[in-house]
């Protein structure tokens, strides 16, 4: 059975700290791994990773994929209260040129205290 496992499930840190969120996966087909941020409503896209070892960066957020060890990490440096959210990791298992949906982990609930 395909699965995506995120850890930790919840994390409380102080403003200014650096956090690392983990995502491991076991899937029959792999096309890409995606990270989303979910505040009160819809998930919003952060990164899509397809190749090992290439870091994607956006401001204080960065992510990298290891296709040999089947995991990805999402780093957030100098955290701010606005970073408080659920961070979702998802794997695109599509094959044959199709796009048959994402398999999500349970998410990491990150709380940044002032």
């Amino acid at each position: 059975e395909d699965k995506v496992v995120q850890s930790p499930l919840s994390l409380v840190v102080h403003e200014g700290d650096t956090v690392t969120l983990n995502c491991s996966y076991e899937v029959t087909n792999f096309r890409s791994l995606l990270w989303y941020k979910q505040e009160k409503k819809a998930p919003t896209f952060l990164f899509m990773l397809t190749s090992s070892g290439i870091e994607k960066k956006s401001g204080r957020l960065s992510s990298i994929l290891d296709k040999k060890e089947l995991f990805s990490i999402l780093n957030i440096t100098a955290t701010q209260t606005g970073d408080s959210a659920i961070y979702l990791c998802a794997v695109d298992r599509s094959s044959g040129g199709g796009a048959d949906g994402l398999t999500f982990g349970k998410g990491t609930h990150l709380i940044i205290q002032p």
Partner: protein
Amino acid sequence: NAGVTQTPKFRILKIGQSMTLQCTQDMNHNYMYWYRQDPGMGLKLIYYSVGAGITDKGEVPNGYNVSRSTTEDFPLRLELAAPSQTSVYFCASGTGINEQFFGPGTRLTVL
């Protein structure tokens, strides 16, 4: 662009009632998806569509039906609502290559 829109935002149903959750996108995406999200859980795929007239089951399709008569619209139908269908429902669309774009969600309670 409005992106992906969903109606209603909230709904309470009685057991056995039926309803349709509406989803519309204005990005001309061929691919559309319905997910449900239960508390403390990630999103699970219910149904998806790769284009008008084509739909397929996802991970948790039981109790739901979909149709795709146009590129823009992808309604989700609940025929006989059950308490197990209490959840937040998200519609998404995409090109099939890059990321999916999500709607704001519909919070459904079945009592």
